[in-house]
C-alpha cells in the first residue's frame, strides 16, 4: 500500500557490484517506503538475485560504487547477521539443506537473536514452541518439519513455506523474497502468497523478485521494476507486469540497446 508521508526504509543509489571480475550491477537506484510492495522482474542474469543477496550481505560480491541506506544507516558496512538483526530478511530462491542442524533449534536461535536486537525478551524452549506453532498456521506447515534438519528432505514447496515461516518469526522490516514462487504448484503458491499478505503491514515493506505474473495475481505490488543488464530500466505500477506478461522482455532489450547507442 502506498501511504502518503510514509518513511523511507531502504534507499539504493547508483549501486555497482561485481563478483570476481565480472560486473553484475551497473547503477541500480531504488527507494522503498513503509507499507509498500515492490516487484522486481527481469530476465535470468539481469541482476535481480545479485541485488537481493547484496542487500542481505552476501560476502561473495564486491561493491565498487554507490550506496545502500537502511533506516538512515549505511548498510554496506554491516555484516549479514547485523543486517538481519536490524530487520532485513532474505527469502532464498534455493534454501540450503543443512543436515544435522535441527530446524526447530535454528528457528529458536534466529528468533531470539532478532528479539534481543529489538529489546524483546528471549523465549525459552517451551515459550518458543508455543510461538512457532502459532506461526505455522500462517503457511499451513506441518509441525513435523520442525523436528527435521534444516530443509533436509523438504520438497520445493516445503522449503518455501519454511522461508515464510522464518519471515513470520523474525518480523522483519523489509522482506526480500527471491523467486519465492519458483517450484511451487498453484496451491502452494496461494498458501505462500497468503502468508506474505498476512505478514505485510503499514510499517513494513516487501520486495518480491519474480518472473511471473501469477505471483502478482496473489500479491498486488504497488510498484513494478524491470531490471536488465544490471540496472532498473523501467518502473511502473502493476500494469507494467501485465505488459511484460503480454509482450515479454524484448521491448526492454530494445530499450537497453537504444540507450547504449545513444
Amino acid at each position, binding site marked *: 500500500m502506498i501511504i502518503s508521508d510514509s518513511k523511507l526504509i531502504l534507499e539504493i543509489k547508483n549501486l555497482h557490484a561485481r563478483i570476481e571480475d565480472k560486473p553484475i550491477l551497473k547503477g541500480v537506484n531504488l527507494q522503498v517506503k513503509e507499507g509498500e510492495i515492490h516487484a522486481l522482474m527481469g530476465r535470468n542474469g539481469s541482476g535481480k538475485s545479485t541485488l537481493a543477496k547484496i542487500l*542481505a*550481505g*552476501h*560476502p*561473495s560480491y564486491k561493491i565498487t560504487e554507490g550506496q545502500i541506506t537502511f533506516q538512515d544507516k549505511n548498510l554496506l558496512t554491516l*555484516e*549479514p*547477521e547485523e*543486517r*538481519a*538483526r536490524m530487520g532485513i*530478511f*532474505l527469502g*532464498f530462491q534455493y*534454501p*540450503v539443506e*543443512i*543436515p*544435522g*542442524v535441527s530446524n526447530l*533449534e*535454528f528457528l529458536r*536461535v*534466529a528468533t531470539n*537473536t*532478532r528479539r534481543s*536486537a529489538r529489546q524483546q525478551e528471549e523465549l525459552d524452549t517451551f515459550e518458543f514452541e508455543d510461538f512457532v506453532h502459532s506461526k505455522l498456521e500462517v503457511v499451513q506447515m506441518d509441525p513435523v518439519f520442525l523436528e527435521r*534438519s*534444516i530443509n533436509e528432505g523438504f520438497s520445493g514447496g516445503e522449503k518455501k513455506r519454511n522461508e515464510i515461516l*522464518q519471515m513470520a518469526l*523474525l518480523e522483519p522490516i523489509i522482506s526480500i523474497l527471491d523467486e519465492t514462487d519458483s517450484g511451487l504448484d498453484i496451491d502452494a503458491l496461494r498458501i505462500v502468497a497468503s502468508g506474505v499478505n498476512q505478514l505485510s503491514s503499514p510499517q513494513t515493506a516487501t520486495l518480491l523478485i519474480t518472473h511471473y505474473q501469477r505471483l502478482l495475481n496473489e500479491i498486488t505490488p504497488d510498484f513494478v521494476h524491470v531490471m536488465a543488464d544490471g540496472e532498473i530500466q523501467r518502473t511502473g505500477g502493476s500494469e507494467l507486469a501485465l505488459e511484460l506478461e503480454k509482450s515479454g522482455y524484448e521491448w526492454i532489450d530494445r530499450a537497453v540497446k537504444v540507450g547504449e547507442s545513444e
Partner: protein
Amino acid sequence: MLNSNEWLTSLPDPKGKLKEVQVRGRKSLPNIDSPSKKNEIWRLTNLDRLKAIFDLPIAFKGSESEENRAEYWPDSPEPVFRISLDPNEDSIESIKLPEGIRLLNNNEIEQILGHVVNRCECNNNWLVTINKASSYHLLALKIQGRSIPPLEIIMPSYRGRLSSTRVLIILEENTELDLLQVFLGTNNSAHSNITEIHLDQEAKLNHGVIADGDGSSSLMGQILVEQKTRSEYYLTNVLKGLFLGRLEPYVVQSDGKAKTSLRGLQISNKLEQIGTYSNIRFDGPEGDLDQLQKAVATDSSHCVFNGQIIVPRHAQRTNASQLSRNLLLSSRARIDTKPELAIVADDVRCTHGATVSQLQDEELFYMRSRGISIKESMQMLLKGYCEDVLSSLPLKAKRWFEIDQLITSSKEST
C-alpha cells in the same frame, strides 16, 4: 625409534592373571618390526610421540588418578551397570554382576583369550604385542540373554603413566547388549588397550567407544571383533583431545551373513594427531557393512583414516559401503584419508567415497542471514556435522563430553 629390549627391561616382572600372556608377548616383541616411517601403516604417525607414550611407566595400584575419581564422572542413566578398570578399586572379582553377566574363570580365559586376536590376524601387530607384554588388568565377561542391562566400562587414566588394559567380551547366541567404553585422559597419561569381542550367532552388540582427552593424553587401542552368522555389530567411536590417538577396529565376519556398522568421529585441535585404522574382512558370503568415518581438524592438528575392506573369493554377495567425510577448518591442519578395498569376489556390491572440505559458505551465509553470529553459526554447523555419528552412540553417551568448544580458530574457515 622405540628400543624393544630396553622397554621390556623397564617393565615390572610378569604377574597376575595375564602372567603367561605377558611372558609370550615379551618373547615375541623383539621379533616384530618396530613402527617405522617406511611401513605404510605407520607412515603418517608421529613416531616421536609414540615413543614418548612408551617411555611412560606402567600404571599400577597406587598410581595417581585424582582427576578420574568416580565422583567426577557423569551419572549413569538407570539401569546402566558401571565397571571401572581401575587397579586402585577393589578386585573385579568382588563386583556383584547383574543376571546374565558373569566373569570368565581362569580356565576359560586361558582357552578363549587371544582367539579373536588370531581370527583378526593381529598376532604380529606391534601394538597388540606391546599390550600383551604389558597389560596386567583384564576384564573378561561372558554375557547371555536378551534383557541384559546396558554396560558402561570406564578406563581411568593415571597421571604420567601408561595404562595397559585388556577387555574380553563374549556375547552368546541370541544375546543383545548396549555397551559404552570410556577412555579417560588427563595429565600426560596414555592408554594401551585391546578389546576382544566375540559375537555368537544372532548376537547383537551396540558398542560405543569414547576417548575424550585433555590434549596431553594418548590412546593406542584395538577393538577386535569376530562375528558369527546373523550377528549384528554396531560400533560408534568418538576420539578427541588426544595428543596421539590411534584406534584400530578390526572386524572379521567369520562365516558371512552378518551385519557390521562402523561410525567414527575424530576431532583434532591444536597439535593433536588422531587416526583410525579400520580393517574389515568378510570370510563368508552375504556379509553387510555400512561404514561412515568423519573427521574435523582445526589449528595445526592432523587426522588420519585408513579403511581396509577385504572381500576374498568366497565372500560372494557381500554388500559393503564406506564413506569418509572430513572437515578441514584451518590452513595449517591436515587430513589424510585412504580407502583400501581388496575385492577378489566378483558378485559383490562395494562402494566407497572420500571428501575433504571446509564448512560450506552457503550454509554459513544462510544462518548469518537469520541474524546468527558467525561463531554461533559455525558451532551449529559443526555440531550438525558431528550429530549423525554422535546420535548413534548408546547410553546417552554425550554426557561424557562437550563439543560446544570445538572451534578455536573459527574465522579461518571463512
